[in-house]
């Protein structure tokens, strides 16, 4: 059974046939693009013209996000920016503290169980002139149920008195830089840093293992993919215990689930030897829509949390250097063994010292275990300089840059964390392109919203939320940006032979758009409206979910 979709325009990302009007598919695979008479030889087909006024491009590939984005939507969104919920409701951003409190109060009123916690997420006080939220303000919403608001950065939380009480933190004499105290000697309710947040977060409705995602969360994540035009998405820090793998297999096995999921096994919690054994055991369980058998190593922390490892001259505000999350010996063992066994590894490095450690280690282990197409990928890699990009090229590494970061936190990096010059070079997609390093760009959802077209806009414009352009030289072109969110990301996952372009033999994965990205252009690409997706030939309309 052959279906031919006609479209206003098909952007194939295949330079041999860059723009066409029809695509023929059979059993989820693309037979070809072109004109109807070119399809004649395949036999009888059904012409489906529901996309006649739409634009098709390859289903977008989000190379660094987390399924957790789906889980978080069961909590109240209180971010500054408008954000589309999985159900398609555009949730208005909270532009003032009062708006945020009003939204929380409304959510509180809907809770029936008097003891239920009220968790909320994505607060960003930098947009409220860094006005501090106090527990008193949250107590006014409820003094009997615990309330907790996770900040957008994921590094800070505000809680009410009840939550502090439950965690045993409503007392004087606390002496910890992450727990600011009020004039009464008691905590103000602001908790800074994951170690401080954790004992409280379980009382306010944030689960123990925040990196995992339950079944309803996965379905919500799927809806977000449809709205964003995404058909392949990573889950970049998964622990993948047996139950989680069962859930992933069951949900992705459902024909109604709209995305291919690529979970990467997080390195922590097992010995390096057991890590390798675990992913080797997982790999054969892969299916078309669930791709197992890859490793994610977290090498350092984050720049805005001052836990990233920086080379000289270090942090702009003089903060001490950050933390390693893996000893160099373990990093070397995992990289070398993975090269030998053909397991793919992605490494999270935020600071340039962490990036350099991976580069040095790769240079060493590649001599011991030469490998031509490992495509090991540096994730975030936010501070890399040009010499480091040249080394990536020499070593066959790919990079996936955090383009959205500029928009949300670029001003903070400029003013506080790394200072003007390095803020301008952060996420240097222009350099990656010039030096010939295969690259992708990402959202790190839920840290920033899932939406590759917005991510592409960020990488092309490098604008911050206050309108500053950060790093003119690192802007990329529309072609480069569109490639980064399709073939570029697919390449970093060894999936470019299957997805990332619309051409014969590849999977019938499309993003269906109301607008033509080429007409929208560099300045307005973020306004491109998404109708839905096609995954392996199955149509998913955003309006249906």
């Amino acid at each position, binding site marked *: 059974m052959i279906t031919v979709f006609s479209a206003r325009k098909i952007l194939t990302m295949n330079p041999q046939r860059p723009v066409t009007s029809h695509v023929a598919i059979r059993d989820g695979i693309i037979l070809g693009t072109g004109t109807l008479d070119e399809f004649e030889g395949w036999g009888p087909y059904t012409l489906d013209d529901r996309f006649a006024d739409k634009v098709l491009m390859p289903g977008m590939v989000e190379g660094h996000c987390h399924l957790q984005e789906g889980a978080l939507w069961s909590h109240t969104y209180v971010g500054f920016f408008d954000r589309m919920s999985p159900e398609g409701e555009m949730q208005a951003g909270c532009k003032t503290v009062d708006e945020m409190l009003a939204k929380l109060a409304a959510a509180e009123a809907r809770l029936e169980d008097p003891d239920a916690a009220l968790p909320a997420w994505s607060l960003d006080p930098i947009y409220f002139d860094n006005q501090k939220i106090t527990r008193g303000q949250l107590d006014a919403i409820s003094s009997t149920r615990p309330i907790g608001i996770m900040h957008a950065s994921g590094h800070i939380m505000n809680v009410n008195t009840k939550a502090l009480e439950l965690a045993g933190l409503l007392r004087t004499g606390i002496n910890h830089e992450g727990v600011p105290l009020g004039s009464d000697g008691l905590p103000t309710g602001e908790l800074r840093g*994951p*170690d401080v947040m954790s*004992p409280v977060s379980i009382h306010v409705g*944030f689960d123990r293992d925040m*990196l995992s995602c339950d079944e309803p969360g996965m379905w919500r994540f799927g809806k977000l993919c449809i709205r964003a035009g995404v058909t392949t998405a990573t889950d970049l820090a998964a622990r993948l215990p047996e139950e989680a793998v069962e859930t992933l297999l069951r949900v992705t096995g459902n024909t109604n689930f709209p995305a291919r999921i690529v979970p990467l096994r997080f390195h922590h*919690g097992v010995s390096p030897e057991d890590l390798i054994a675990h992913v080797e055991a997982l790999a054969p369980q892969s299916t078309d829509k669930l791709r197992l058998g890859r490793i994610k190593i977290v090498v350092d922390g984050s720049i805005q949390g001052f836990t990233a490892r920086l080379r000289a001259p270090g942090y702009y505000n003089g903060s001490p250097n950050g933390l390693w*999350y893996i*000893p*160099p010996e373990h990093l070397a063992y995992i990289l070398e063994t993975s090269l030998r066994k053909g397991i793919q590894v992605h490494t999270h490095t935020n600071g340039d010292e962490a990036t350099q450690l991976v580069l040095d280690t790769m240079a060493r282990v590649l001599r011991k275990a030469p490998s031509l197409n490992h495509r090991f990928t540096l994730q975030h890699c936010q501070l890399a300089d040009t010499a480091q990009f040249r080394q990536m090229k020499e070593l066959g590494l790919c990079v996936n840059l955090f383009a959205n970061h500029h928009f949300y936190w670029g001003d903070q990096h400029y003013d506080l964390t790394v200072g003007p010059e390095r803020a301008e070079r952060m996420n240097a997609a222009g350099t990656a392109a010039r030096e010939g390093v295969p690259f992708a760009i990402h959202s790190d959802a839920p840290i920033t919203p899932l939406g590759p077209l917005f991510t592409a806009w960020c990488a092309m414009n490098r604008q911050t939320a206050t309108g500053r352009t950060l790093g003119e030289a690192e802007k990329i072109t529309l072609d480069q940006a569109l490639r980064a969110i399709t073939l570029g990301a697919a390449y970093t996952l060894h999936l470019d032979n299957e997805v990332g372009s619309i051409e014969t033999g590849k999977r019938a994965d499309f993003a269906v758009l109301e607008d033509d990205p080429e007409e929208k252009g560099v300045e307005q690409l973020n306004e491109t409206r998404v109708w839905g997706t096609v995954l392996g030939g199955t149509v998913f309309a955003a309006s249906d979910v």
Partner: protein
Amino acid sequence: MSDTGLPLTIIGGYLGAGKTTLVNTLLRNAQEQRLAVLVNEFGSLPIDADLIEAQDGDLVTLAGGCVCCSYGDDLMFALTKIRNMDPAPDHILLEASGVALPGAIASSISLFGDDIRVHGVVTLVDAETLPDLLSDTYISDTITRQLKSADLVILTKTDLAPPEKTSLSRELVGRHAPSASVLESKVDGIARILLLDDVSVDRASDLDIAPHKIPLVTNTLSMTETVDADAFAKTLASDPNVVRAKGHMVQADGNRVTLQLVGGRYSITNAPKTAQSGIVVISKSA
């Protein structure tokens, strides 16, 4: 001051310094004590599974905490769980990862207030590898910070390292951990020092702690007079030769209190009703 407070010992140090060996030895020597063990890194040397079973399976494994999307910290979750354990363990051992900063961990644990008390930060260093680690581009500042936060530094493998390395390491420890107590020993000797908890005051004086290079002396102070416990503890803690102390005493107000001291760190809590006065002090015979 409170009646309880779970004692917790942080065991830090880089890979290969002997952390897991120490944990295994502590488990083996725990006798009636229930030890809860937290491990936040898995090296090539596994925690002995048989020993863990003997301890009611209280091994909690940790992941590393903050990732790019750092919504949680496993250590704090695990401790929250241990705090609510019934029956409660007698002591928590936390084997920090080779790149963890024990000082930062101790600071986080202070958030548990009286419920969990850091009883000592013990940093292990391998006499053979320390000089190289301290000149490593990537790792040196981590090692420096590990040493700086130690109450007790244990220089291990002094019997295996060439003498000149050992003396260089000794000097480096002195430079980077000037206020910590320093011991050179095989881990089995150390285990017994750290486990003084389950040793009654009377038996302690008979302990045959066989240190490697520096002889240790065990003294039992009878504490028949009332004392200012804090001032007393401060004096012991500031004595560089005192490695470890534990016991009970009566204050001027009639309150009976328990002292726990590891290197320069001590805590004073209300003593159990039945506690007998007397403090065991282990010190280097200078």
